């Protein structure tokens, strides 16, 4: 079912393309400048270009998979639609009251993201349910109509979020309200909270619903332009969009749930890492990505990335966690830290070097870009240390200026601390590594993940320069460098499969849960998730179902996720649940309690079959000439000095070949750095697999 496919990732600077034909293991890549005024233009032009470069007829493309930061940027820059909200009477101010918690105890000036919907665009509706879904107050339809008319006519809203209390338990009032809104205004975009994310916790659910409504008009317009443009150049295949949880969505799913497109870019690198874990049978893996502004880490166990169901978007104050919009969506659980290539280095009040979280971004960018940037950044340090080739950055597409880098570091760090240039540059590099290690340690420990026995997979333009040293700090014994780290967000998408997940609140003591009730709950959720995949054209028999229950000891405030053994009958599933729960509980607490159990929620995910695993590397046909390009002077403190460091051409390394650190292995968009004691071997997939020295 998977033929010729094309992945497209729109980044801040470049739009990346990766094409793969799983049937013959063939791949190609392409890169061009992003067109920020109209992102679909670069996509259309790029599709045409990569097809013509490789003499592929556009109608032969079976699928285009697409990742976009459109929604993320719209929330940050507040470029969404004017949105109205209908809310249960008494709760219009929920967003202003907020979370009633300070995210920074030491800063008396913290600020929070302003609500997406202005207070005047929020109308209260007479209706009320209890937590079991019983109607306490009937929906007042006349009052509702008046409010909708006012919001549309006077406030000129284009999208409407319908947010009632306890709608997760009974969507009836919200659905009726949506029906009335659509009757009155057929062109109005409407989102209901029970549809967007039917989970108890009104503040987060309503914020998510408003973000969804807010994004709907622009996503609709964007997709229409993209669909029309692709059709015009002859594309007749499937268009998919990658979602934050790593699954692919059809355009109609994306139009209905645009909020799930947040964070779609970074998910692709994790998909690649997860597929490597699956293919190489690695049980614990850390996917590490370092880009222009941040570094990210995600954990993968037995080929499944860790997920979470809360996500904070659009931080409003000093990049701080807690200052953004609190959303509920399925998302790959990532540690994110403000250490990227563009992160600015400086000296703090303690006289210590700090790197990030402020970033020089891509414009003006690091000092060495020569675009007028004066800040010393991580990229400037890496260039000064000899890890980057000034003449071969982005495969020579961009020239770097080493003098500008040194001057910036001297000015910002060297002179202030009376430190020589190399030491200061090393400080920036090593401190970034330490900060990233610290964030990963915390992330892994909080999730009970033993990182010391795991493998790291490095992607992103900057990941491969830092991975080996971070692994060493974390005592991670092995690092895998897939080929094409710099275009991984486009390529990784081609390894993902269509999927859709719902999360639902349902609280009930386990002993009162009848098999028939469990069956109803499962069937209901399964029907919903399957429906989305069937509509997207996936054959019913190909859809796999994954169901999990959130469970807890009654009275405890902490849920444990238990995967349902779907091959068993409902009676048997219920019978084994306590044992499965105890097993999962013991992993966290190293003990179990003598207390009754309850379930609190249900997660169901429908998945289409995954495409076959392939990589961008693995050129068994590479010419037998030596991959050694030459040497470059680079700073290796383990040697205590600058060494003549061997530089290899990644494209000429053949499977089975080994390289010993210290060395640099260059490809167009990234450079792998191996330190003293590290040894890298190219595997049959073209991955460079490094055993890290101790």
């Amino acid at each position, binding site marked *: 079912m998977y033929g010729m496919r094309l992945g497209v990732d729109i980044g801040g600077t470049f739009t990346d393309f990766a094409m793969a034909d799983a049937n013959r293991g063939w791949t190609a890549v392409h890169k061009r400048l992003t067109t920020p005024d109209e992102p679909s233009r670069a996509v259309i032009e790029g599709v045409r270009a990569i097809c013509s470069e490789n003499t592929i007829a556009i109608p032969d493309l079976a699928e285009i998979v697409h990742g976009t930061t459109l929604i993320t940027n719209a929330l940050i820059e507040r470029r969404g639609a004017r949105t109205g909200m209908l809310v249960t009477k008494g709760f219009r101010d929920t967003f202003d009251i907020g979370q009633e*918690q300070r995210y920074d105890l030491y800063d008396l000036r913290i600020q929070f993201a302003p609500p997406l919907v202005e207070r005047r665009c929020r109308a209260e509706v007479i209706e009320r349910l209890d*937590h079991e879904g019983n109607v306490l107050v009937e929906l007042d339809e006349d009052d509702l109509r008046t409010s909708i008319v006012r919001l549309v006519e006077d406030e000129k809203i284009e999208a409407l979020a319908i947010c009632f209390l306890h709608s997760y338990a009974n969507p009836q009032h919200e659905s009726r309200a949506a029906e009335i809104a659509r009757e009155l205004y057929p062109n109005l975009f409407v989102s209901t909270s029970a549809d967007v994310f039917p989970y108890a916790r*009104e503040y987060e659910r309503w914020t998510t619903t408003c973000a969804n409504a807010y994004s709907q008009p622009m996503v609709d317009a964007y997709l229409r332009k993209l669909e029309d443009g692709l059709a015009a150049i002859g594309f007749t295949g499937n268009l998919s969009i990658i979602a934050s949880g790593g699954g692919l969505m059809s355009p109609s799913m994306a139009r209905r749930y645009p909020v799930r497109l947040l964070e779609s870019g970074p998910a692709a690198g994790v998909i690649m890492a997860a597929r490597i874990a699956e293919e190489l049978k690695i049980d614990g893996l850390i996917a590490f990505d370092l880009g222009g502004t941040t570094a990210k880490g995600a954990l993968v166990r037995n080929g499944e990335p860790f997920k979470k169901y809360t996500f904070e978007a659009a931080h409003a104050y000093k990049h701080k966690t807690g200052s953004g919009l609190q959303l509920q969506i399925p998302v790959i659980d990532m540690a994110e830290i403000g250490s990227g290539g563009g992160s600015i280095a400086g000296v703090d009040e303690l006289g210590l070097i700090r790197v990030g979280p402020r970033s020089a971004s891509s414009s003006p960018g690091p000092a060495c870009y020569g675009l007028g940037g004066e800040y010393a950044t991580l990229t400037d340090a890496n260039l000064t240390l000899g890890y980057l080739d000034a003449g071969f950055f982005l495969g020579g597409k961009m020239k770097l200026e080493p003098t500008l880098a040194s001057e910036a570091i001297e000015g910002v760090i060297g002179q202030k601390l009376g430190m020589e240039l190399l030491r200061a540059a090393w400080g920036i590099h090593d401190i970034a590594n330490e900060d990233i290690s610290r964030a990963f340690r915390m992330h892994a420990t909080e999730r009970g993940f033993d990182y010391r026995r795991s493998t790291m997979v490095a992607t992103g333009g900057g990941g491969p320069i830092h991975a080996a040293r971070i692994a060493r700090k974390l005592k991670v014994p092995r690092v895998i460098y897939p080929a094409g780290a710099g275009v991984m967000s486009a390529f990784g998408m081609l390894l993902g499969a269509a999927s859709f997940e719902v999360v639902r609140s349902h609280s009930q003591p386990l002993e009162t849960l009848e098999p028939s009730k469990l069956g109803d709950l499962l069937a209901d959720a399964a029907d919903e998730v399957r429906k989305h995949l069937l509509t997207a054209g996936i054959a019913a028999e190909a859809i796999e179902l994954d169901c999990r229950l959130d469970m807890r000891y009654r009275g405890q405030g902490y849920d444990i996720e238990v995967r349902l053994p779907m091959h068993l009958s409902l009676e048997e599933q219920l019978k084994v649940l306590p044992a499965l729960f105890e097993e999962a509980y013991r992993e966290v607490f190293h003990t179990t309690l003598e207390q009754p159990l309850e379930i609190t929620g249900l997660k169901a995910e429908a998945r289409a079959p995954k495409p076959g695993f392939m990589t961008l590397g693995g050129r068994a046909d590479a010419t037998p000439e030596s991959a050694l390009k030459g040497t470059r002077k680079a700073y290796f403190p383990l040697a205590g000095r600058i060494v003549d460091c061997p530089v290899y051409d990644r494209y000429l390394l053949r499977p089975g070949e080994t390289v010993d650190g210290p060395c640099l292995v260059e490809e167009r968009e990234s450079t792998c750095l191996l330190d003293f004691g590290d040894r890298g071997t190219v595997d049959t997939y073209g991955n460079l697999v490094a055993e890290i020295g101790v």
Partner: protein
Amino acid sequence: MNTQRTIDAVDLSIMWNRLISITDEGAAALVRTSFSTLVREGYDLTVLIFDAAGRMIAQSAKCIPVFIGTAPTTLSHMLRKYPADTLVPGDVVISNDPMYGTGHMFDLAVMRPIFDNELLVGFSMGITHLPDIGGMGFSVSATEIYHEGLRLPICKLYKAGMLDHDVIELIELNVRVPEQVTGDIFASVSCTEVVARHVLEFMREYQLDSLTELADAILTSTDDAVRSALRAMPDGVFRNEVQVEALGEVRKLVCAINKTGDTIEVDFEGTGPCVGAGINVPFPYTRAMVLYAIKCLTSPNIPNNEGAMRAIEVKAPLGSILNAIPPSPSAGRHAIGHFIFPLITDTLAEIVPDRVAASSGLLDIVTLQGFRRDGSPMAATYFCAGGFGGAEGLDGHPTLPGSSNMGRTPIEVFEPLTGLTVLEKSLRPDSGGPGRYPGGAGQTIVMRNDTGYPMRVYAMANRTLFPADGVFEGKAGAVREHWVDGEKMSGQGAYTLAPGQHLKLLQPGGGGFGDPALRTSAQIEQDIERGFLTPEGAKSLYSHAG
């Protein structure tokens, strides 16, 4: 020793960060396995590293203010009882004494000496809020410390690696949820072990024989940074006082702050005596709150360690409500202790006007007991926040807790938990203290008892008599009020909510910053638009014509 010669800024950044990372990792592991909701949701715990001389050099970054500066005191008392040269590998010392710790007995400190072979190189410590410590539970109802549960002497839980089963049994016999309490204690024990192991690995990686030189560098840099921040502030002696509700009584908290050069001294001389309820504040808690306030005003980004406290001295008269000694009870010491923070910031407002916020409306804590609709017993605590104070150039945020930081319970979680129906949770207009930058609005919460059973309401409210004051001519916010149907209730006490009755909680606003006459018409119009003011309120509070 000249530390500058051997440890430069790069080494210091990396090594210092690593030590903090070790404590953070320890704290994360403890939070993950903790049975206490306060630990899980409020980070009511801390993990620390000391050098061989008992100097605290690293502390987990995420913890509540009560742990600032308290652990060094705890360790010094432990070492007074068990001198360092008598400790052996595998010893673990514990204490929950409120006088040596954090002011109440829920917090248990677990300490382990770190040995590199036979050489003592430092100490690791974990402190967590236990799920229970016996006595009357987490409340202010005690009239003597003896009612508040199990007060352990400083003792060895492990002697050279051997567990003292008598100590564990003693604890198990005295608490309500022994499995959970011992579970948390053993988690702390293994946390100190992991921290100790990581410290030794760290020392090997950087080829250190001792932590002393690194500790010197950390403490000196920190002390220097704090002192340079203090030097930048004007000198003077600043006095202030505040009245607080103390369960049917009123207490005056008095402070004099003497800022001279690079030091600061805070003296609570003149503060009133203890009361016969568990709201008295042992000195370590008072000191922690002072250190917290000064940290916010001078050096909020500096990691916590002993160097950050050298330039700051705190005094309070023995036996006063800010230096309580047994038998005065103190389980709910935060009820009074939370006023220390605004007292300090208000006092220093004139010399650091751009860094303070006016007083906030603080937290309301209501405990509810009764039965759910299905007849099952129910007990729940409801937290809600008043408005935050205004600051230079910044309006006070509505409904944001001050001093403490407990979050809200979502209505969709609270209703099934209690059987109450929340009918309204809205901004309380006209409650924020008027000012050029007004205090944040409080809120109005109305809930109906739909359980069919009478419900007991235990209120621990403050700010019902004394509002959040403004600064620099800013005005005070509205006070807190509790109502049952049409009847106004006492903010501190217990009453019954009959089936069908409505409990109404009016939350206070924050204090205003600056002269309200300087608030522009356009800003006032926007305050009306945003629900912070009514048109009538705009008229009466700001003389706004509208």
